[in-house]
């Protein structure tokens, strides 16, 4: 077992053991905290596909996080009010169906956004992805049918066959399993032919084109897959808070996802997990002491960027290796 596998296993176990223990000790708050970590980590796993493997610094992934959230919120609202969706289709509170909708919607939205954004690179790419996300944000805020600025409440958490999702622990377990699946997907992608092409596109796009693989196509597919994973996390986030908020779509959220990845280790499989743990713990511990906790987050981020480029995973497991 390599050091990285060991560190990853440790993080995965820790994230599982703490909420289970907390649940048995009658401390549901910590279960909720762990759920928040798992969901944010999953969102960042999605972004890590584009950013970490492909070097695509999307500053607009809140769009997909929020769209996933609104998919959960809109479907739940329609189901709650017994209003059919378009064309008289009945809505549902079944999570698997909602996830599927979130994933498909995000994939379909990511393709045109990616097709435009990926014509550019560097700062322009960052700005165009930001602009698209802000457009969607303002669209949501100005659409009263789905809550406008107030967002959309989910009165009863959506359902999963055979589990009581209203209980913190079963819902945590759902999120945890999806996080593990997301991490598995990340690993398969990274090690596959597609991943080889995607990482080569980050290192040297001209080289990739010179062997006959079009970088644009590889990046576009990566961007869409990345958006779909982040969208799934958005649906879970809305169910966690029982609320689809326009803030899920805002640029703060996009920035937060990037911060998670940088803290944890860019392009590392468990980077988003480590980053989300640190982020949520800081938010909880420092946030309890001072309103200005983000100042300290900034200091830590600065420390990582200056002294520990590999992020937390880099510290725990050493440098990344490419076969």
């Amino acid at each position, binding site marked *: 077992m390599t050091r990285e596998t060991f560190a990853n296993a440790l993080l995965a176990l820790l994230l599982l053991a703490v909420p289970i223990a907390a649940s048995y000790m009658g401390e549901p708050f910590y279960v909720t905290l762990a759920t928040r970590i798992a969901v944010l980590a999953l969102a960042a796993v999605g972004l890590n596909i584009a950013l970490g493997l492909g070097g695509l610094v999307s500053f607009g992934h809140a769009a997909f996080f929020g769209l996933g959230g609104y998919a959960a919120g809109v479907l739940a609202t329609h189901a709650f009010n017994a209003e059919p969706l378009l064309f008289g289709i009945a809505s549902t509170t079944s999570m698997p169906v909602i996830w599927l909708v979130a994933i498909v919607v995000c994939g379909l939205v990511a393709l045109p956004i990616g097709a435009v954004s990926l014509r550019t690179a560097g700062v322009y790419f960052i700005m165009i992805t930001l602009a698209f996300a802000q457009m969607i944000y303002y669209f949501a805020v100005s659409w009263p049918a789905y809550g406008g600025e107030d967002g959309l409440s989910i009165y009863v958490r959506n359902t999963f066959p055979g589990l009581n999702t209203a209980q913190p622990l079963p819902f945590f377990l759902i999120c945890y399993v999806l996080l593990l699946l997301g991490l598995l997907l990340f690993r398969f992608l990274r090690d596959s032919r597609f991943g080889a092409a995607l990482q080569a596109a980050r290192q040297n796009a001209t080289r990739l084109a*010179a*062997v*006959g693989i079009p970088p644009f196509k590889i990046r576009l597919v990566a961007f869409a897959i990345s958006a779909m994973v982040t969208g799934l996390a958005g649906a879970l986030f809305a169910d966690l808070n029982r609320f689809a908020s326009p803030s899920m779509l805002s640029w703060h959220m996009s920035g937060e996802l990037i911060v998670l990845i940088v803290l944890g280790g860019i392009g590392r499989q468990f980077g988003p997990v480590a980053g989300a743990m640190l982020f949520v713990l800081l938010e909880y511990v420092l946030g309890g002491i001072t309103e200005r906790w983000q100042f300290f987050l900034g200091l830590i981020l600065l420390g990582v960027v200056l002294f520990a480029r590999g992020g937390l995973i880099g510290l725990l497991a050493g440098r990344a290796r490419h076969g």
Partner: protein
Amino acid sequence: MADPVLEIRDLRKSFGALKATDGVSLTLLPGEIHALIGPNGAGKSTLIHQISGALKPDGGTIRFLGQDIGGLGMAARARLGLARSFQTSSLAQEFSALRNVMLAVQAKQGSSLRFFRPVMRDKSLTEPAMAMLERVGLAARAQVPAAELSHGERRQLEIAIALALGPKAFLLDEPMAGMGPEGSKSLTRFLDDLRREAPILLVEHDMDAVFALADRISVLVYGRIIATGKVDEIRNDPEVRRAYLGDAA
């Protein structure tokens, strides 16, 4: 005479007022090494860039295997069978030498939209890639990241990648540059055999190599071809001697 593999007609490219390619026409015939020589800044690399699709010409046509490839991007041209090397090595720096070649093997095999099988355990990628590294004498360095290879080794790796594409024509931009006398000699022998696999358009400053290898030579000066011919014709051409060769011939 056999149909040319590559046929360039009246190609033009300007950078502002500078005519880097000024009405260039040339052909690459099956089985030949066609050397392209000329002073620094003559426009040799610019020409290679246009043929490979890295730069868009202002005018003129490029036909490859009888097909006008002017509208195709770089990747599409590579898939048709145009393999190039770069004057300054252009590699995936974090990847090992082996993985750099595997990328070419993967491209040659078809779609890269395969998401599950790990490449490092895929013998259909690793074995051909290793064979290419062996051919260029780089097998012992297979696991070393490209960024850590020596200058000469990177040149060899570029050749291995081009080989792995199994191309219909090679465009090699100064493959000997910085190789050292021993490296140049062994690469000269290597290229001598390589022309049997596919014809080579060879940009090179090393005149010993050019005179030893070339079936034909074209001389490019200020974006224009001032002479094309067999080795002896070029060696004895007074204009070429004045513009480029000087005492070397």
